């Protein structure tokens, strides 16, 4: 297990280095950063001055190396708009986003896994049809539109929940539903197919032939196997949800990292954008790493491989 974890950790570090380079280079290849910072009123001379001040005239790899060196010390640069260290802004902003992400993940799992189990236990039943409908609708529903529909519903028809801001727990309900419903269909479908596959295995036949009660077969023997792939998917979905917070936080006016992405892009705040792309990517790498380690812990075959 330790050996597996170390090996998996090493590959995650390599991946992080590569992804951080791409995140860094992206901003430079997509446009001229100096011109962006100078803004629409800036002259060529302004851009030139910015270029030498920020060191944009040095080779990309050198710039990356010095940037990475600073990042490793926790320095993500200085925000052009706020004129503050990006690190402190991000720490503040990611609190809301993480809270939202965790709430949405819990909501998605609580919704999708029981539904997936029921649908897999009784394929083609009414439950299964309802679950399928739920999944198909969820996968086709654009997040921002669903968010607006809920706002219409709760601000006009049933004004019982706040539809804007993120100050109290009641503010988090609608964003959690929107983001959770975005992630739930895939988890539900995988749970369902995992359950169906697990229930058809030889070892479930063995358990039945040995008189293990069917409740135990379902909740332990089959579920444990059915949920193995769901762990990886849930981690990936959590990553997608964090990215999806860009849209949801913008619609619900939540003061989080997702909204900061949007704001920074509109403000051409390059160091902040760069740091955000880096952070969101790193979260994804860490999440998949954690998922793999959980999987190894749940599945002895991976552990020893």
């Amino acid at each position, binding site marked *: 297990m330790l050996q597996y974890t170390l090996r998996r950790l090493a590959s995650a570090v390599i991946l992080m280095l590569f992804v951080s380079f791409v995140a860094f280079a992206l901003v430079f290849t997509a446009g001229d950063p100096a011109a962006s910072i100078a803004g629409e009123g800036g002259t060529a001379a302004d851009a030139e001055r910015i270029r030498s001040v920020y060191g944009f005239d040095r080779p990309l790899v050198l710039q990356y190396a010095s940037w990475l060196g600073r990042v490793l010390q926790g320095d993500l640069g200085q925000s052009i708009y706020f004129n503050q260290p990006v690190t402190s802004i991000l720490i503040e902003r990611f609190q809301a986003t993480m809270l939202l992400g965790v709430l949405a993940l819990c909501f998605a799992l609580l919704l999708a896994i029981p539904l997936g189990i029921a649908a897999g236990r009784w394929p083609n039943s009414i439950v299964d049809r309802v679950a399928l409908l739920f999944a198909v609708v969820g996968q086709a529903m654009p997040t921002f539109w669903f968010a607006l529909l809920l706002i219409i519903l709760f601000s006009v028809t049933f004004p019982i929940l706040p539809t804007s801001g993120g100050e109290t727990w009641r503010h988090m309900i609608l964003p959690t539903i929107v983001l959770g419903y975005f992630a739930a269909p895939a988890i539900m479908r995988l749970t369902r197919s995992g359950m169906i596959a697990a229930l058809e295995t*030889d070892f479930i036949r*063995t358990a039945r032939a*040995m*008189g*293990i009660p*069917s409740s*135990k077969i379902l909740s332990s023997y089959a579920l*444990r196997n059915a949920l193995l792939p769901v762990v990886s998917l849930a981690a990936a979905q959590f990553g997608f949800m964090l990215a999806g917070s860009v849209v949801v936080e913008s619609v619900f006016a939540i003061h989080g990292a997702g909204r900061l992405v949007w704001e920074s892009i509109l403000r051409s705040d390059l160091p902040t954008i760069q740091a955000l792309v880096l952070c969101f990517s790193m979260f994804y790498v860490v999440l998949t790493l954690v998922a793999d380690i959980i999987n190894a812990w749940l599945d*002895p075959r991976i552990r020893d491989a």
Partner: protein
Amino acid sequence: MDSMLLDIEKLNVTIDTAAGPLKAVQNVSLRVAKGETFCIVGESGCGKSITALSLMGLMPKRAKRRAERMMFDGTDMTTLGESGMRRLRGNRISMIFQEPMTSLNPVFTIGQQLTDVMRAHSRVSLAEARERAAFLLNKVGITNARERLGQFPHELSGGLRQRVMIAMALMCSPDLMIADEPTTALDVTIQAELLRLLRDLQQEFEMGLVLITHDLGIVSRIADRIAVMYAGQIVEDGTADEIFGNPLHPYTQGLIACIPSPDHPRMQHLPSIPGTVPPLIGGLKGCHFRERCPYAMPSCMEEIELKGHEAAHRYRCILPAQTSAAHAKMAQGEQVHA
């Protein structure tokens, strides 16, 4: 027949398929006495496994079971329902399967799977159950039994996993064990060891044993009684001595002729029965074996009942005299196991 452990009368299993109902098992009657070894023999697709699974109440989803009588040790199994059958399964009747590599749950330890069986049927402490599990692992020839309890299935070889399966089936000291092709997936040397183990355990635990196999050769060593199945029907049954000494159905004769024997080691050609088991969709009329039978004649189109004396020997063929004469000729120079 009070002393009978298992008494099945006219068991029928029908499976719904896209192409129509498939009569996988037709009017199968069998009786197994306490402590007896009863073998069901036949090629793949003859309905042996379905017969066994339906005895356990574990039919595939689309299968329907119908029987005139299904008694286990004086209890009518048709009236038991799922919860009653569950209490029987693994407790008084247990079953082991052909696929040792996939029959154990990959994510639980051997110990957990063994103890779960015992704790599903009786109120014992975990420590007691583990004690029993270690004792049985030892019994089925696994060394370091206590260490093995903490291991996962993928850490064991196929032969060891099948031993674990046997130990699992013995956890509650069942009265009857059904073994469905238990050695088919294993190496030949391990096959022999496992069969000997099964026979020893059967005697020690005084269980009834129903052994299902396509290999008549392995049956000769341990069977008390044999039923030969072909295309969903029993075509011949009787004591092992009778079946091997005086096979009356051409299919049985064919199977016996196919047994490789050390007495005629370098035969140029191991005989085989030409053709394959016919599809069972719709209804087969007359003798199911007639298309592959060397002695088929027009009257084989008619329905044929089992004839003979139940306790000793029955057969489903219109030509016992002729075929037995033919068999005698076939057997010349080929010493048949008795």
